[in-house]
């Protein structure tokens, strides 16, 4: 159909209202010493050492920043083991054997809400830095760097929109942790001395609106409120959020902070609450395990470092495991996530979900230039022309067609009537002009 696609339709049979299952007792946890943003790392403990929850046991070095590695369970360090990271690479991991005692380290010192508010800027940033908090929506960008901005911030937005189908981590956080969310937002607004703090989610979730209204009444102040956005894809893209909520156009290549706004993912904000008030780094996270390839899809709260195959087993395993149906494992959403070929991948701070889909091989047809991709592109690009320019290796044209502002949202491939994998060409085009 030649039309602008704004909704991702999917037949998802998923019990959103089901309470998240706590999976806090894996036998071992694996903590990567390096990751996608940090190429080097160091371990501070020796084999056989006993560690406690929240203890700093190593450090990752990302060039312009370092990131402490915290133990997420208490137990014994039994050596390093190579495990698959979310990027699909084998990396060295610290392997800790669980003693099932969940003892907290002495370094974890809680603070009261008032104490946190009295921290000066430097202390505040240091505390966030030492907690190792990163963008938990999947970006993995160190959060303390966002607090170091020199720009004057007027509005703080919390992104709980989660526009990709299948995912429900943000929904769960807004429903289950509203008090932490509101209090942490209060702290952030205070830190920036901003005019307003806004929690944003989709207008179809009336239950979130009820929960947040009540929470804001009790714990909020007149600077804090919530706003809803329409249900479309990609509503959760930061630029769309600023546009929908504040009517603000953030041009491509401009940092939102330069325009006086800043956005945080909802799970990052809850992580901030833990880091500041509880003094606890990210040791647990919400995790969604879903898709038509999994028997009993559910939301989890898991210990960071848990291998995913344990969670898959907990969900009853794969559907039709004995039949000849191949599975595609996706970390993240079905539109932008990364595919992995090992189910022993470990849950890290930034993995939000695992989607297991039965493999579908789409038959690609010739492009009939229907222009559905042009009409559907949220950044106003012309994917079909970028594809043709990429095929003929015309870097100048690719550049002029503004491939730089492509966000790889996957809409062009999704909407294509000829089932051409345009997003793959967009990735190639980006490489072409690098």
């Amino acid at each position: 159909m030649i039309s602008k696609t704004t909704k991702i339709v999917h037949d998802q049979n998923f019990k959103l209202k089901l309470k998240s299952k706590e999976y806090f007792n894996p036998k071992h946890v694996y903590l990567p010493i390096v990751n996608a943003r940090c190429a080097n790392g160091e371990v501070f403990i020796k084999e056989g050492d006993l560690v406690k929850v929240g203890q700093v046991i190593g450090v990752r070095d990302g060039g312009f920043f370092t990131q402490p590695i915290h133990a997420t369970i208490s137990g014994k360090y039994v050596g390093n083991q190579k495990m698959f990271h979310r990027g699909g690479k084998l990396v060295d991991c610290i392997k800790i054997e669980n003693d099932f005692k969940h003892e907290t380290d002495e370094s974890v010192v809680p603070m009261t809400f008032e104490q946190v508010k009295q921290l000066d800027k430097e202390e505040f940033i240091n505390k966030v830095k030492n907690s190792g908090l990163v963008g938990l929506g999947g970006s993995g960008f160190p959060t303390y760097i966002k607090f170091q901005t020199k720009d004057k911030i007027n509005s703080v937005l919390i992104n709980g929109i989660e526009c990709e189908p299948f995912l429900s981590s943000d929904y769960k956080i807004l429903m289950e942790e509203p008090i932490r969310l509101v209090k942490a937002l209060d702290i952030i607004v205070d830190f920036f001395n901003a005019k307003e703090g806004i929690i944003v989610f989709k207008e179809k979730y009336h239950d979130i609106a009820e929960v947040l209204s009540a929470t804001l009444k009790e714990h909020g102040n007149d600077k804090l409120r919530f706003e809803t956005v329409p249900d479309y894809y990609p509503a959760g893209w930061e630029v769309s959020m600023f546009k929908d909520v504040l009517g603000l156009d953030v041009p491509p290549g401009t940092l939102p902070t330069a325009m006086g706004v800043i956005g945080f993912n909802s799970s990052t904000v809850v992580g901030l609450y833990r880091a500041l008030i509880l003094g606890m780094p990210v040791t647990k996270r919400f995790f969604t395990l879903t898709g038509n390839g999994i028997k009993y899809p559910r939301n989890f709260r898991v210990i960071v470092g848990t291998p995913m195959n344990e969670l898959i087993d907990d969900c009853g395993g794969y559907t039709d495991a004995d039949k000849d149906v191949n599975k595609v494992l996706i970390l993240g959403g079905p539109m932008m996530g990364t595919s992995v070929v090992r189910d022993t991948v470990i849950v890290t701070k930034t993995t939000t979900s695992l989607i297991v889909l039965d493999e579908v091989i789409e038959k690609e047809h010739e492009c009939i230039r229907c222009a559905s991709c042009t009409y559907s592109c949220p950044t106003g690009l012309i994917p079909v022309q970028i594809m043709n320019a990429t095929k003929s290796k015309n870097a100048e044209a690719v550049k002029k067609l503004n491939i730089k502002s492509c966000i790889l949202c996957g809409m062009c491939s999704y909407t294509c009537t000829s089932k051409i994998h345009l997003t793959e060409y967009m990735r190639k085009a980006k490489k072409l002009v690098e």
Partner: protein
Amino acid sequence: MKLVRQTAPYIRKKVTVERMMLDVIIALLPSVIFATVYSNGAALAILAMSLATVLASEYIYTKITKRELTKATLYAGAITAIIFALTLPTTLVTSGEPVIGLYVVFVGAAFAIIVGKLVFGGLGTNIGNPAAIGRVVVILAFGSVLTYDAASGATALGTLKSTSENFVEQFNNAMEYYSFKDLFFGTIPGSMGEVSALAIIIGAVYLFYRKAADLRSTLSMLASFSIIILVAALGLGVNPFEYLLFHLLSGGILFGAVFMITDPVTSPTTARGRIIFGMIAGVLTALIRIFGAYPEGVAFAILMANMFVPSIDYYKWQNTKYTRKFVIGVTTTMAVLSLIVFLGIGGIA
């Protein structure tokens, strides 16, 4: 069971190119049925000849190039064949030698599919609308065989063409001979698929409801066509609305605007591009009708508009937004063209 790697996105919209093409074929059915009934079945001979020629060519092409004969290729070929057939008059086989008539269909259809499409590399690669190419070849090569009506010898548009001192009187005579009712229902001589506005409109409603075609170029073609015709009516001194309605309901403008200009392969790939594209085709159709030697020129106009597509799609000029510059550009162009037409027709004197 194996775990396999794919790249994002992993889910696709439930649309297929086959279904889109099938919708176009369904939208063409009212015109096909009308033509068949109105001609007592003679239309079927032309349709069958056209379909056989096109599909056989597609089949041989896939054999030569060692490609797979997909459903999409077949449907696309069928669309070309049906549209081409519908632009021909049934008099080809009902009056004179049917064998010669079918030979004309064969040559036109073969030219349409082979020169119009396959030499470029098949589906998705051609630059000109194949059906329009076939139609133009028939006009140029077999003009003498193309008699529309044995009795009157002239189509509705043809009656406006013969030179006469008093155009107002000539137009009134034409309207007397061809009532709006006849023009609307299609009980007039002419190309078998183009005569019935009703059948085309029924097809169009389905086509656009199913979003199997882009409405933008259709609307822009009809709008720009109407503007030029209205201006011409002012210059000629006839009732502008009667003149416009007469032009819209006769000839191939409706058929071309619904089924030919909407061919996605030969259209630009942006919304603004399609508006410019439709505008070029609409203006050219009007200009050929008013000033040209032929009474009708939809096929020529669409082919000429097709030639502009690479320029419209030139990467340095791309923008997907309706900027102020674009709106001003389009309005100014239309204003200047209208003025030229008005002066050219002798509107001042």
